[in-house]
């Protein structure tokens, strides 16, 4: 990271710490003075969460001059960090004791953690995809996979007639047909472990020892397709992981908002029932 991005990050972090320190100091100042400070921090937290959620709304309105998505993401990330300070100020820097509040806390933390991990993952994975090469459009992966499968099957079948031996075809049925049928080694690709690939390569090498020159040529072509399929699986695993984390982060955010609404109703219901007016 250099130049513009480094400057932007440094400025944003300095600002974040300054605002967070100011918020904590303000909170400490008003704690002894205001009996109902948690109402104030609660509404502030809700406003912050609504602002964070509004980013998804911005994405749905690309035709309006609402600022660039990159500016929104920066605000989303740093205001998200700030919400942690507001959240703990709201709960009084302790773990809530009620089950409903505990549930809310857990949900909030999962949303925050999924957001942080998702952002880090979004910064890390594109570099891996680029350095590995073999860029494909995600939507095209099934089509390409099918094409590789057809070509590999065709090679295996033709090898029987050409070499009067079913060695390659048998190997294909035993070890490769399932491999070509769908995505494989998802987690190995995610964590960048090459063990499954090495194992498959080793099996291909073993088979090669028992083939004649002509069959080896065919096996070389099959191996090339296996390599391409492995690259395709890599693209599938990493590209889908870039999409899947949002399926945790976004739905949980909306669930959190619903529970927060219920939390507001319950708080006001109980406080009014107890004769307390905020």
């Amino acid at each position, binding site marked *: 990271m*250099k*130049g*513009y*991005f480094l400057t932007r990050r440094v400025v944003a972090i300095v600002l974040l710490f300054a605002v967070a320190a100011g918020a904590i100091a303000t909170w400490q100042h008003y704690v002894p003075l205001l009996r109902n400070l948690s109402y104030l921090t609660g509404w502030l937290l809700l406003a912050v969460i609504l602002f964070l959620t509004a980013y998804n709304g911005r*994405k*749905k*309105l*690309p*035709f*309006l*001059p*609402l*600022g*660039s*998505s*990159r500016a*929104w*993401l920066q605000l989303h990330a740093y205001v998200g960090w700030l919400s942690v300070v507001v959240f703990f100020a709201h709960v009084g820097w302790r773990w809530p004791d009620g089950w409903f509040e505990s549930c809310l806390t857990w949900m909030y933390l999962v949303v925050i953690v999924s957001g942080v991990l998702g952002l880090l993952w*979004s*910064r890390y*994975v*594109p*570099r891996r*995809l*680029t350095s590995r090469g073999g*860029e494909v*459009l*995600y939507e095209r992966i099934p089509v390409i996979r099918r094409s590789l499968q057809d070509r590999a099957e065709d090679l295996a079948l033709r090898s029987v007639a050409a070499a009067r031996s079913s060695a390659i075809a048998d190997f294909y049925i035993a070890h490769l047909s399932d491999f070509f049928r769908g995505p494989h080694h998802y987690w190995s690709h995610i964590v960048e472990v090459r063990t499954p690939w090495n194992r498959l390569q080793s099996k291909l090498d073993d088979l090669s020892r028992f083939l004649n020159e002509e069959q080896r040529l065919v096996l070389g072509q099959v191996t090339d397709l296996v390599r391409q399929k492995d690259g395709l699986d890599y693209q599938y695993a990493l*590209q889908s992981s*870039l*999409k899947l984390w949002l399926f945790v982060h976004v739905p949980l955010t909306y669930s959190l908002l619903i529970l927060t609404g219920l939390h507001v109703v319950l708080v006001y219901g109980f406080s009014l029932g107890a004769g307390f007016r905020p």
Partner: protein
Amino acid sequence: MDTLHFKIERPDRWDNPFEPEFPDADLDRLLGTAPFCDMQTEAFPKSQPLRQILRNDTRLRRFKKGEIIVRAGDYGSSAFMIVSGHARAALPPGLPDRMLGRRQPQKLGIFRAIAQLWGNSRLTEYRRPDELTSDHGAAPVGRGPEAGVFLQDVPRLLDQHKTAVIVAGEFFGEIAALSRMPRTATVFADGDDTELLEIRWQGLRDLLRFDKAIKTHIEQTYRKNALENALRAIPLFQHLSESDLQKVMAETQFGTFGDYEWSGEYKRLAKAGQAAPEKEPVVAAENDYPDGVVIIRSGFARLTKQFGSGQRTLNYLGAGRFFGLREIVHNWKNPASPIAFQTSLRVIGYTHTLFIPTSVMERVVLPTAPQNLLPKPFTAAELNLDDTDPLHEQGGLGNRVGPELMEFLTANRFFNGTATMVIDLARCTRCDDCVRACAATHDNNPRFLRHGPSSGRVQVAQACMHCTDPVCMIGCPTGAIHREAAQGNVVINQSTCIGCTTCANQCPYEAIRMVEPRDRDGGFVTDQELKPILKATKCDLCLEQYGGPACERACPHDALKRMNLTDLGSFVKWLER
């Protein structure tokens, strides 16, 4: 062992004549009229006689009253000569866009912009009837590349706009054809049967080469109409007095290099994986005596230096850029130790140049030029640099971009784009927010593919680049594809597009797609013969939307940028963020 060879006829200069069948009677009639009857046929070489040039590089066309022959702002590769009848050229400020079959993009109202949230069609390529009907003022007639556009209500037009009459024997459109500049005036037929000779640029080039009268006529027209403005636009010549500028103009030579229709050849080579810019013509060679300054007038050239057995690209030069100025300034300031050209200038595609001899530069331009406009002489260190690292010599942009990426940009001609969609693959999460934003702002029809050639972490997506040299605009029969007036972006008027596919075939970057529009019921829009209507579509840079291109604004990770790649500096800045 016998070898079977695949034999073909040797390709010939006139394998593809402009008009497949040019009648002999018409040819004889042409050769009997001025200016062809006054030409000295013996001045033409045996391999390219005047009769063959006329037969193969020209065609006769007839226009009806009010039919547009050329439109101001269009690009074209032909010049015209009136054979019989007469035409009119609209004088400045010219005819309104609406009359020419163009539609300037208008910003949507704020409520219509918001209504896109729920109002976008669920059908692909849905068009409202008013989007497909012709604008008032222009009416396309016919199909295919020969279709024409007629001006409506010509008498009223003549009342409201100033025009000049062009009569038989007069040429027009020759400067735009030779220099690849946009046409400066709209010309339309004034008689009901106006006959014109259309001369394609190759023929015009040969006529210029072998007939002094035409050469003098065109050069005089060029010097009178275009050269002064071209030189005055360059800061180095702005300080010159009128008489000094006339001296420079008198000595300036014009040069045309490469293939005017480079896009077709480039596409063919690219498909075969053989795009090889090093095969292109050399304007000036490294180590030659610097006999003058070359100014790129239009098109592109690349600055190269010998490296190993090949040529390494250091930079590319577009319109208005100089070659050789630094060497000439060096020699002028150090007459005791003159140097040769330090780099070569090679044509990419098609390049039109101005050449000003060293003697004129030294006598007229340099003595009075402000020092801040002159490049610094070469230092001893620069001249003695080790040839194994020629990029280092530039110490600048080419070096910072890196050799691989420079060759990638050059080989693919991406420097042509003023709004090229570049994607930093090391930051792109492949979320497709850009594609969704594009679809949302174009009635659910994305106008680009997030896919395309890449080098390292830089990908150039298949989106209209709004080129400096818009080859897509050459040959559009109705002028539907044009530059919008405000910012010069290339747009397509859906109502006057006749679906001839000329633009899509010409585009070297596969950025124009032909689609079959649908009506409200989801059926294809058809003509009277129930054949589906075709329309060309492409990125319009969201000119009707607020805030600029939606794709760029929708990218959360700073990965996508619409970039002017004619300016290598901004690209370097983006790379080094």
